[in-house]
């Protein structure tokens, strides 16, 4: 996989979520995503960015345009130095929330992505990466 372009944004306040969405949209459009695919990855980005703020205490987002052979894609990596996730499987369960949400952000983002990965341990912070291909 080749990284064509990589940009990093802070994810600390709710306005940052809007900025992340906008930049993800730009990358998705450049990769030639359909409107549906754009919307999917932008929405996934919105979910994970908000979790980074709400549960991770803020962090940053790396947004990358990538290619694999002739396929174009967008890869996102959100990292924070927050409390981490104790039980990743449980956090990925539909409806599981510790913050009074719908508990659909993580699982929904996973369904909206082609690749999805969570690295997290208590006290170690959380890194969520996901990618969507054209």
């Amino acid at each position, binding site marked *: 996989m080749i990284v064509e372009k990589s940009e990093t944004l802070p994810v600390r306040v*709710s306005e940052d979520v*809007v900025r992340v*969405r*906008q930049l993800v*949209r730009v990358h998705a459009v450049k990769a030639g995503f359909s*409107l*549906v695919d*754009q*919307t*999917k990855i*932008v*929405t996934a980005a*919105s*979910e994970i960015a*908000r979790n980074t703020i709400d549960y991770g205490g803020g962090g940053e987002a790396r947004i990358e345009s990538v290619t694999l052979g002739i396929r174009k894609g967008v890869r996102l990596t959100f990292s924070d130095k927050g409390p981490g996730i104790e039980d990743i499987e449980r956090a990925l369960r*539909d409806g599981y929330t510790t913050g009074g*949400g*719908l508990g*659909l*952000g993580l*699982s*929904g983002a996973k*369904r*909206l992505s082609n690749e999805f990965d969570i690295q997290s341990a208590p006290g170690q912070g959380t890194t969520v990466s996901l990618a969507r291909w054209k």
Partner: protein
Amino acid sequence: MAAPTPSMLPQLLDKHQAQLMKDWLAGQRAAGVVVDVESDERVRRFIAALRQGASSNADDVKNADWAAARDVLEQISRERALKGSTPVETVMFVFSLKDPLFALLRRECGSDADRLAREIANAMHLLDQLGLYTVEVFQKSREEVIGRQQEELLELSTPVVQLWDGVIAVPLIGTLDSARTQVVMESLLEEIVRTGAEIAIIDITGVPTVDTLVAQHLLKTVSAARLMGADCIISGIRPQIAQTIVHLGVELDVISKATMADAFAVALRRTGRMVVSRAGNGKGASKAENGDKAAGKTGAGQSGE
């Protein structure tokens, strides 16, 4: 930094007021300060206020003796902040006084270099403080302006309109953060109570991203409306948004329509009304009747953020 001997500033300002006014206004023009019909009066007032402050020997401009000078500066700073001037432009009102004032001091002190150094240091100290104060007020006014604009935007972007007896609608536009949703929810509920509406249409054509947070806000609004006795219809869910919501796993347990027109048709039917074409216009049947089935057009493809 109190001057050991009283400053000559007050007498100087008295004696050379006219000359100073003229030179200062020229200096303001040169520095790019807006000089208008009010400038004469303002310059006069500021020199008088400066005289008052300087004769008090208080060398801190936050002191009560400097209240009149601060008044003038506050007024200017507010005005400029409202007009969208830059802080530099604004503070140049004060700083452009330095050159003409120092020139006067130089002339007045003659060969007394010690005196001149002291007088200039004193005047510089005062004008710098007054300049800083100007920037401070300017900054605060800017923030007030921005805060007010944000509030206005919040209200502006959430107009609840009455479409018909018993039918109201709110077209949502832009990013639905928590603050805005709160405002939407409140004004919608108020309108339901005020108009006794049975049906509230929430149109999200202009909402670029519907994630779980937005969905949750919508669901809360719908439940609250229900408690007030009104049913909600959500309209303007574009196809890409619909697909995304499904993948997210969100169930919007509420009637939804592709367009506001479709939603309105349903609302009319539900409240026992019908839209009929006038005789001679071809079709007699109402559009409202098959509103439920209408796939409808799906708004503008995409709304940016």
